[in-house]
Protein backbone atom coordinates (compact mmCIF):
# COMPACT_ATOMS: atom_id res chain seq x y z
CA UNK A 1 0.00 0.00 0.00
CA UNK A 2 2.77 2.36 0.97
CA UNK A 3 4.55 1.57 -2.23
CA UNK A 4 1.56 2.60 -4.23
CA UNK A 5 1.31 5.79 -2.28
CA UNK A 6 4.85 6.80 -3.13
CA UNK A 7 4.18 5.88 -6.71
CA UNK A 8 1.30 8.27 -6.91
CA UNK A 9 3.05 10.72 -4.62
CA UNK A 10 5.99 10.80 -6.96
CA UNK A 11 3.75 11.58 -9.87
CA UNK A 12 2.04 14.34 -7.94
CA UNK A 13 5.25 16.01 -6.81
CA UNK A 14 6.70 15.68 -10.28
CA UNK A 15 3.71 17.35 -11.83
CA UNK A 16 3.86 20.06 -9.23
CA UNK A 17 7.52 20.85 -9.91
CA UNK A 18 6.93 20.84 -13.63
CA UNK A 19 3.98 23.14 -13.23
CA UNK A 20 6.01 25.66 -11.20
CA UNK A 21 8.62 25.69 -13.93
CA UNK A 22 6.01 26.25 -16.57
CA UNK A 23 4.54 28.99 -14.45
CA UNK A 24 7.84 30.87 -14.54
CA UNK A 25 8.33 30.53 -18.26
CA UNK A 26 4.69 31.32 -18.81
CA UNK A 27 5.14 34.51 -16.88
CA UNK A 28 8.24 35.42 -18.86
CA UNK A 29 6.29 34.85 -22.04
CA UNK A 30 4.22 37.90 -21.28
CA UNK A 31 6.79 40.15 -19.61
CA UNK A 32 8.43 42.82 -21.75
CA UNK A 33 11.56 41.65 -23.46
CA UNK A 34 15.02 42.81 -22.50
CA UNK A 35 16.46 42.87 -25.97
CA UNK A 36 18.35 45.97 -27.03
CA UNK A 37 17.96 46.46 -30.74
CA UNK A 38 21.46 47.46 -31.68
CA UNK A 39 21.37 48.83 -35.18
CA UNK A 40 17.95 50.38 -34.60
CA UNK A 41 19.04 52.11 -31.41
CA UNK A 42 22.27 53.34 -32.88
CA UNK A 43 21.50 56.97 -32.19
CA UNK A 44 20.68 56.45 -28.56
CA UNK A 45 23.15 53.72 -27.76
CA UNK A 46 25.33 54.66 -24.85
CA UNK A 47 28.71 53.02 -24.60
CA UNK A 48 30.46 53.42 -21.27
CA UNK A 49 33.16 56.00 -21.70
CA UNK A 50 35.79 53.75 -20.20
CA UNK A 51 35.19 51.20 -22.90
CA UNK A 52 38.25 50.80 -25.06
CA UNK A 53 37.40 50.73 -28.72
CA UNK A 54 40.11 52.16 -30.91
CA UNK A 55 43.30 53.94 -30.05
CA UNK A 56 43.26 57.49 -31.29
CA UNK A 57 45.55 60.45 -31.30
CA UNK A 58 43.68 63.72 -30.92
CA UNK A 59 44.88 66.56 -33.09
CA UNK A 60 44.34 70.25 -32.62
CA UNK A 61 42.97 72.42 -35.41
CA UNK A 62 46.43 72.84 -36.93
CA UNK A 63 46.81 69.11 -37.18
CA UNK A 64 49.39 68.91 -34.43
CA UNK A 65 49.33 66.21 -31.83
CA UNK A 66 50.90 66.13 -28.42
CA UNK A 67 53.07 63.19 -29.35
CA UNK A 68 56.78 63.77 -28.80
CA UNK A 69 57.79 60.54 -30.49
CA UNK A 70 59.50 59.20 -27.40
CA UNK A 71 58.55 55.68 -28.44
CA UNK A 72 57.57 54.59 -24.94
CA UNK A 73 54.25 53.23 -26.15
CA UNK A 74 56.00 51.14 -28.74
CA UNK A 75 58.33 49.63 -26.16
CA UNK A 76 55.63 48.94 -23.65
CA UNK A 77 53.21 47.34 -26.08
CA UNK A 78 53.22 43.59 -25.53
CA UNK A 79 52.02 42.94 -29.05
CA UNK A 80 54.02 45.28 -31.24
CA UNK A 81 50.76 46.88 -32.22
CA UNK A 82 52.30 50.34 -32.26
CA UNK A 83 55.06 51.52 -34.54
CA UNK A 84 56.39 55.03 -34.01
CA UNK A 85 58.39 56.40 -36.85
CA UNK A 86 60.41 59.46 -35.89
CA UNK A 87 63.24 61.59 -37.14
CA UNK A 88 65.71 63.95 -35.56
CA UNK A 89 64.97 67.52 -36.43
CA UNK A 90 66.99 70.55 -35.48
CA UNK A 91 64.94 73.13 -33.74
CA UNK A 92 65.45 76.40 -35.52
CA UNK A 93 65.11 78.56 -32.47
CA UNK A 94 67.38 76.85 -30.04
CA UNK A 95 69.49 74.82 -32.39
CA UNK A 96 68.95 71.70 -30.28
CA UNK A 97 68.19 68.40 -31.92
CA UNK A 98 64.73 67.15 -31.22
CA UNK A 99 62.77 64.03 -32.09
CA UNK A 100 59.79 64.60 -34.29
CA UNK A 101 56.98 62.27 -35.18
CA UNK A 102 56.86 61.20 -38.77
CA UNK A 103 54.33 58.46 -38.71
CA UNK A 104 52.34 56.77 -36.00
CA UNK A 105 51.03 53.37 -36.94
CA UNK A 106 48.65 51.31 -34.93
CA UNK A 107 47.40 47.80 -35.67
CA UNK A 108 43.88 47.43 -34.39
CA UNK A 109 43.96 43.75 -35.25
CA UNK A 110 46.74 43.10 -32.78
CA UNK A 111 45.67 45.38 -29.98
CA UNK A 112 44.66 43.72 -26.74
CA UNK A 113 43.44 46.91 -25.06
CA UNK A 114 45.72 46.54 -22.07
CA UNK A 115 45.95 50.33 -21.80
CA UNK A 116 49.67 50.23 -21.10
CA UNK A 117 50.46 52.64 -23.92
CA UNK A 118 47.93 55.22 -22.78
CA UNK A 119 49.17 54.94 -19.23
CA UNK A 120 52.80 55.37 -20.04
CA UNK A 121 52.40 58.23 -22.46
CA UNK A 122 54.10 61.23 -20.85
CA UNK A 123 52.05 63.78 -22.78
CA UNK A 124 48.65 62.07 -22.93
CA UNK A 125 48.88 62.15 -26.68
CA UNK A 126 46.90 58.97 -27.21
CA UNK A 127 43.69 57.66 -25.78
CA UNK A 128 41.05 55.06 -26.47
CA UNK A 129 37.75 56.09 -27.98
CA UNK A 130 34.59 54.08 -27.76
CA UNK A 131 34.08 53.31 -31.42
CA UNK A 132 33.31 49.67 -31.88
CA UNK A 133 32.07 49.50 -35.46
CA UNK A 134 35.33 48.39 -36.90
CA UNK A 135 34.59 45.24 -38.83
CA UNK A 136 36.11 45.31 -42.29
CA UNK A 137 36.61 43.00 -45.23
CA UNK A 138 40.19 43.90 -45.74
CA UNK A 139 42.74 43.02 -43.13
CA UNK A 140 45.08 45.80 -44.13
CA UNK A 141 42.55 48.44 -43.08
CA UNK A 142 43.10 47.45 -39.48
CA UNK A 143 46.61 48.79 -39.77
CA UNK A 144 45.83 52.39 -39.09
CA UNK A 145 47.93 55.43 -39.37
CA UNK A 146 47.06 57.75 -36.56
CA UNK A 147 49.46 60.44 -37.53
CA UNK A 148 51.45 61.19 -40.58
CA UNK A 149 53.64 64.17 -41.23
CA UNK A 150 53.38 65.37 -44.80
CA UNK A 151 55.75 68.01 -46.03
CA UNK A 152 56.04 69.70 -42.73
CA UNK A 153 52.38 69.77 -41.81
CA UNK A 154 50.80 66.84 -40.16
CA UNK A 155 47.54 65.78 -41.67
CA UNK A 156 44.59 64.79 -39.68
CA UNK A 157 43.53 61.19 -39.17
CA UNK A 158 43.83 59.60 -42.50
CA UNK A 159 42.54 56.13 -42.71
CA UNK A 160 39.08 55.54 -43.96
CA UNK A 161 38.23 53.56 -40.88
CA UNK A 162 38.69 56.51 -38.66
CA UNK A 163 37.36 59.04 -41.09
CA UNK A 164 34.17 57.06 -41.41
CA UNK A 165 33.50 57.25 -37.75
CA UNK A 166 29.80 57.96 -37.29
CA UNK A 167 29.11 61.33 -35.85
CA UNK A 168 26.44 59.97 -33.62
CA UNK A 169 29.07 58.17 -31.64
CA UNK A 170 31.50 61.00 -31.63
CA UNK A 171 29.01 63.25 -29.93
CA UNK A 172 28.67 60.99 -26.97
CA UNK A 173 32.33 60.83 -26.18
CA UNK A 174 33.06 62.60 -23.00
CA UNK A 175 36.39 63.41 -21.49
CA UNK A 176 37.62 60.77 -19.15
CA UNK A 177 36.20 61.02 -15.67
CA UNK A 178 39.49 60.39 -14.04
Amino acid sequence: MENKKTYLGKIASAIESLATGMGITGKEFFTPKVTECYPENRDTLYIFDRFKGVLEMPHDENGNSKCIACGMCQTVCPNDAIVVDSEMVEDEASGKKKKQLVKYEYDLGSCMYCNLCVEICPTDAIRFNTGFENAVFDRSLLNMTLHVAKAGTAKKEETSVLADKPEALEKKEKPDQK
Partner: protein
Amino acid sequence: MEVGKTKKKELVKIKSIPYKDFKNNDYLEEMVRELHENGVNVVVGALDEAINWGRGNSLWPLTFATSCCGIEFMSVGAARYDMARFGLEVARASPRQADFIMVAGTITDKMAPVLKRLYDQMADPKYVIAVGGCTISGGPFKHSYHVVKGIDQILPVDVFIPGCPPRPEAMLYGMMQLQRKVKLQRFFGDVNKKEVSEKEYEERMKRDMTANS
Protein backbone atom coordinates in the same frame (compact mmCIF):
# COMPACT_ATOMS: atom_id res chain seq x y z
CA MET B 1 37.72 56.72 -50.70
CA GLU B 2 37.25 59.74 -52.96
CA VAL B 3 36.08 57.51 -55.78
CA GLY B 4 33.58 55.87 -53.51
CA LYS B 5 32.08 59.18 -52.58
CA THR B 6 31.58 60.33 -56.13
CA LYS B 7 29.68 57.18 -56.96
CA LYS B 8 27.32 57.74 -54.08
CA LYS B 9 25.33 54.71 -55.09
CA GLU B 10 23.88 52.58 -52.37
CA LEU B 11 24.79 49.10 -53.39
CA VAL B 12 23.13 47.32 -50.57
CA LYS B 13 20.75 48.35 -47.88
CA ILE B 14 20.85 47.28 -44.29
CA LYS B 15 18.05 48.40 -42.07
CA SER B 16 18.83 51.21 -39.64
CA ILE B 17 22.39 51.92 -40.72
CA PRO B 18 22.94 54.26 -43.63
CA TYR B 19 25.20 52.97 -46.32
CA LYS B 20 27.76 55.68 -45.83
CA ASP B 21 28.16 54.82 -42.17
CA PHE B 22 29.53 51.44 -43.00
CA LYS B 23 33.24 50.94 -43.17
CA ASN B 24 35.15 49.58 -46.05
CA ASN B 25 32.53 50.31 -48.67
CA ASP B 26 35.21 50.65 -51.32
CA TYR B 27 35.85 46.94 -51.02
CA LEU B 28 32.26 46.17 -51.93
CA GLU B 29 32.31 48.67 -54.76
CA GLU B 30 35.43 47.07 -56.12
CA MET B 31 33.86 43.65 -55.83
CA VAL B 32 30.73 44.72 -57.68
CA ARG B 33 32.78 46.41 -60.36
CA GLU B 34 34.65 43.19 -60.96
CA LEU B 35 31.43 41.27 -61.17
CA HIS B 36 30.06 43.67 -63.75
CA GLU B 37 33.16 43.38 -65.83
CA ASN B 38 32.54 39.69 -66.16
CA GLY B 39 29.13 40.51 -67.54
CA VAL B 40 25.87 39.45 -66.01
CA ASN B 41 22.87 38.14 -67.82
CA VAL B 42 19.90 40.26 -66.88
CA VAL B 43 17.54 37.38 -66.11
CA VAL B 44 20.13 35.59 -64.10
CA GLY B 45 20.90 38.88 -62.44
CA ALA B 46 17.35 39.33 -61.21
CA LEU B 47 17.19 35.79 -59.96
CA ASP B 48 20.52 36.30 -58.34
CA GLU B 49 19.16 39.24 -56.47
CA ALA B 50 16.30 37.23 -55.04
CA ILE B 51 18.57 34.40 -54.09
CA ASN B 52 21.08 36.68 -52.51
CA TRP B 53 18.39 38.39 -50.53
CA GLY B 54 17.53 34.97 -49.16
CA ARG B 55 21.10 33.98 -48.54
CA GLY B 56 21.99 37.26 -46.94
CA ASN B 57 19.13 37.08 -44.53
CA SER B 58 19.56 33.50 -43.59
CA LEU B 59 23.08 32.99 -42.40
CA TRP B 60 23.31 30.21 -39.90
CA PRO B 61 26.42 30.16 -37.80
CA LEU B 62 28.34 27.12 -36.73
CA THR B 63 28.62 26.85 -32.98
CA PHE B 64 32.32 27.21 -32.77
CA ALA B 65 34.21 28.90 -30.00
CA THR B 66 37.57 28.34 -28.52
CA SER B 67 37.98 31.04 -25.92
CA CYS B 68 36.97 34.47 -24.67
CA CYS B 69 35.32 35.63 -27.88
CA GLY B 70 33.12 32.57 -27.68
CA ILE B 71 31.55 33.86 -24.50
CA GLU B 72 30.79 37.16 -26.17
CA PHE B 73 29.39 35.22 -29.08
CA MET B 74 27.08 33.51 -26.63
CA SER B 75 26.12 36.94 -25.35
CA VAL B 76 25.22 37.95 -28.86
CA GLY B 77 22.91 35.00 -29.02
CA ALA B 78 21.46 35.68 -25.60
CA ALA B 79 18.50 37.79 -24.71
CA ARG B 80 20.06 41.23 -24.56
CA TYR B 81 21.59 41.33 -28.01
CA ASP B 82 19.59 38.55 -29.59
CA MET B 83 21.01 37.81 -33.00
CA ALA B 84 17.73 36.07 -33.75
CA ARG B 85 16.54 39.47 -34.89
CA PHE B 86 18.73 39.00 -37.93
CA GLY B 87 17.64 35.41 -38.35
CA LEU B 88 21.07 34.29 -37.27
CA GLU B 89 20.07 32.36 -34.22
CA VAL B 90 19.83 28.94 -35.77
CA ALA B 91 23.32 28.02 -34.64
CA ARG B 92 24.03 24.58 -36.02
CA ALA B 93 26.32 22.23 -34.20
CA SER B 94 26.97 20.26 -37.34
CA PRO B 95 29.21 22.01 -39.88
CA ARG B 96 27.22 20.48 -42.72
CA GLN B 97 24.27 22.69 -41.97
CA ALA B 98 26.02 25.94 -41.20
CA ASP B 99 26.55 28.83 -43.57
CA PHE B 100 29.32 30.65 -41.87
CA ILE B 101 31.81 30.04 -39.18
CA MET B 102 32.52 32.65 -36.56
CA VAL B 103 36.05 31.84 -35.58
CA ALA B 104 35.79 33.12 -32.05
CA GLY B 105 38.96 32.70 -30.12
CA THR B 106 42.58 31.79 -30.47
CA ILE B 107 43.48 29.18 -33.05
CA THR B 108 46.50 27.20 -32.01
CA ASP B 109 48.74 25.05 -34.13
CA LYS B 110 46.98 21.94 -32.88
CA MET B 111 43.56 23.39 -33.60
CA ALA B 112 44.40 24.72 -37.05
CA PRO B 113 43.93 21.44 -38.93
CA VAL B 114 40.70 20.86 -37.06
CA LEU B 115 39.41 24.27 -38.00
CA LYS B 116 40.39 23.71 -41.58
CA ARG B 117 38.58 20.41 -41.56
CA LEU B 118 35.48 21.97 -40.09
CA TYR B 119 35.58 24.53 -42.84
CA ASP B 120 35.97 21.83 -45.45
CA GLN B 121 33.03 19.96 -43.99
CA MET B 122 30.75 22.91 -44.44
CA ALA B 123 28.48 22.99 -47.45
CA ASP B 124 28.91 25.68 -50.08
CA PRO B 125 28.40 28.62 -50.07
CA LYS B 126 30.25 29.27 -46.86
CA TYR B 127 31.83 32.22 -45.14
CA VAL B 128 34.34 32.91 -42.44
CA ILE B 129 34.34 35.69 -39.89
CA ALA B 130 37.49 36.23 -37.91
CA VAL B 131 36.51 37.50 -34.50
CA GLY B 132 38.95 39.18 -32.19
CA GLY B 133 42.61 39.91 -32.18
CA CYS B 134 43.68 36.29 -31.87
CA THR B 135 42.15 35.23 -35.14
CA ILE B 136 43.24 38.36 -36.97
CA SER B 137 46.86 38.43 -35.98
CA GLY B 138 47.45 36.11 -33.06
CA GLY B 139 46.49 38.96 -30.76
CA PRO B 140 47.92 38.81 -27.29
CA PHE B 141 49.59 35.53 -28.15
CA LYS B 142 51.26 36.76 -31.27
CA HIS B 143 54.70 35.75 -30.11
CA SER B 144 53.71 32.37 -28.80
CA TYR B 145 55.14 29.17 -30.20
CA HIS B 146 51.77 27.51 -30.56
CA VAL B 147 49.41 30.12 -31.94
CA VAL B 148 48.45 30.73 -35.55
CA LYS B 149 49.22 34.30 -36.44
CA GLY B 150 46.00 35.13 -38.16
CA ILE B 151 43.58 32.60 -39.55
CA ASP B 152 43.75 34.21 -42.96
CA GLN B 153 46.78 31.98 -43.36
CA ILE B 154 44.58 28.92 -43.39
CA LEU B 155 41.09 30.08 -44.35
CA PRO B 156 39.69 32.67 -46.73
CA VAL B 157 38.35 35.21 -44.28
CA ASP B 158 35.43 37.38 -45.32
CA VAL B 159 35.08 39.76 -42.41
CA PHE B 160 37.47 40.79 -39.69
CA ILE B 161 36.05 41.99 -36.40
CA PRO B 162 38.76 43.51 -34.25
CA GLY B 163 38.47 43.60 -30.49
CA CYS B 164 39.70 41.58 -27.59
CA PRO B 165 37.01 40.39 -27.35
CA PRO B 166 34.79 42.56 -29.54
CA ARG B 167 31.69 43.70 -27.74
CA PRO B 168 28.43 42.11 -28.87
CA GLU B 169 27.42 45.16 -30.87
CA ALA B 170 30.68 44.96 -32.74
CA MET B 171 29.93 41.35 -33.57
CA LEU B 172 26.48 42.25 -34.82
CA TYR B 173 28.09 44.94 -36.90
CA GLY B 174 30.49 42.39 -38.32
CA MET B 175 27.63 40.07 -39.16
CA MET B 176 25.87 42.88 -40.96
CA GLN B 177 29.03 43.49 -42.92
CA LEU B 178 28.94 39.85 -43.92
CA GLN B 179 25.30 40.18 -44.91
CA ARG B 180 26.23 43.07 -47.14
CA LYS B 181 28.94 41.10 -48.78
CA VAL B 182 26.77 38.06 -49.32
CA LYS B 183 24.00 40.13 -50.81
CA LEU B 184 26.32 41.53 -53.42
CA GLN B 185 27.81 38.29 -54.55
CA ARG B 186 26.61 36.28 -57.47
CA PHE B 187 25.28 32.88 -56.80
CA PHE B 188 25.39 31.71 -60.40
CA GLY B 189 28.84 31.40 -61.74
CA ASP B 190 31.69 30.54 -59.52
CA VAL B 191 32.53 33.91 -58.07
CA ASN B 192 31.73 32.93 -54.55
CA LYS B 193 33.45 29.61 -54.73
CA LYS B 194 36.93 30.05 -53.54
CA GLU B 195 36.83 26.31 -53.32
CA VAL B 196 39.07 23.52 -54.39
CA SER B 197 38.47 21.35 -57.41
CA GLU B 198 36.04 18.47 -57.30
CA LYS B 199 38.84 15.97 -57.25
CA GLU B 200 40.74 17.46 -54.41
CA TYR B 201 37.50 17.86 -52.54
CA GLU B 202 36.84 14.14 -52.80
CA GLU B 203 40.36 13.48 -51.68
CA ARG B 204 39.94 15.64 -48.63
CA MET B 205 36.67 14.02 -47.78
CA LYS B 206 38.32 10.67 -47.95
CA ARG B 207 41.03 11.84 -45.62
CA ASP B 208 38.43 13.19 -43.26
CA MET B 209 36.66 9.94 -43.07
CA THR B 210 39.72 7.85 -42.52
CA ALA B 211 41.33 10.23 -40.09
CA ASN B 212 38.58 10.33 -37.60
CA SER B 213 35.13 9.11 -37.20
